[in-house]
């Protein structure tokens, strides 16, 4: 399996993924990695119905996804979708380090605003830092034609005023 996009998006399968990214890169599979959804038939059916008919939607637990990603060298193309950055950390803990992670939509109430579509909780920030440490390049980009922004830079910009205030 060739993963064309690893994406964190709290909406998982939705318009930006199907039309924005999907029409551009034409994945054959959409793989949602989430323990809760993998164990909930109703959620699987609901999200599966959001996928276009020509694209297979699959729902894997973190453990099953890590095994599949480590083992599979097949020719099929896929997008891997995660609800939070923490899921990517759990994938790394399970033995698969995501090389590049797109953050395309996180809307935490009261979260740290990095872009118009990224509002991170303290745990999201901690997860992003852990991913950096593990070697994952994390970037913000909601749609393919938008600018790709390194999360490291966005977080540094947020921290700078705080450091200045502390002095």
């Amino acid at each position, binding site marked *: 399996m060739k993963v064309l996009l690893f994406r964190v998006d709290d909406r998982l399968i939705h*318009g930006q993924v199907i039309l924005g990214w999907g029409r551009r890169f034409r994945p054959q599979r959409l793989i949602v990695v989430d323990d809760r959804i993998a164990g909930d038939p109703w959620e699987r059916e609901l999200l599966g119905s*959001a996928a*276009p008919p020509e694209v297979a939607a699959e729902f894997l637990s973190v453990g099953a996804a890590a095994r599949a990603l480590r083992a599979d060298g097949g020719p099929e193309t896929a997008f891997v979708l995660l609800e939070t950055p923490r899921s990517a950390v759990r994938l790394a803990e399970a033995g698969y380090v995501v090389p590049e992670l797109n953050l395309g939509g996180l809307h935490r109430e009261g979260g740290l605003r990095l872009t118009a579509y990224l509002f991170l909780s303290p745990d999201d920030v901690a997860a992003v830092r852990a991913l950096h440490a593990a070697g994952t390049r994390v970037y913000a980009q909601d749609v393919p034609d938008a600018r790709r922004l390194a999360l490291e830079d966005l977080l540094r910009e947020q921290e700078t005023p705080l450091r200045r205030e502390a002095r």
Partner: protein
Amino acid sequence: MIEAAKVAIVIAHGSLASGLVSAMEKVLGPQPNVFWLSNGGKTPETLEREIQALVARQPAGSQVYLLSDLRGGSCGTTSLRAARRTGVRGVFYGTNLALLLEFVLHQDLPPEAFFEALVSKARTAVDGVAIETGGSAEPAGSSR
């Protein structure tokens, strides 16, 4: 038999929902049973909570319908998720102005006929006219 009041909650991306309600009210006047929500800047959970709160505010016996924009989009998916957990009577996808106008105008129809009438009206309202360079315009799909 007089049916209970039908309530519409239009749920769409960006300012589409407010725009549709505003356009409908330009045609039919203010409608106390039509509400709108946007998904802008919200998690699916937040949007779902807002839908549930709005449904809970409706008088007992109301028939609440969710009118979402894109099937497979986050508004449509969240609407269906919210509908499952509330007493919502139905979810529409692909809401356009024609569907919303019919919603208000067909308050008296029973639920099955209501659904059919609205979906049919919304579908037939989508049409187009191909303009050929140097030629005359005729409705798309027509044949003579």
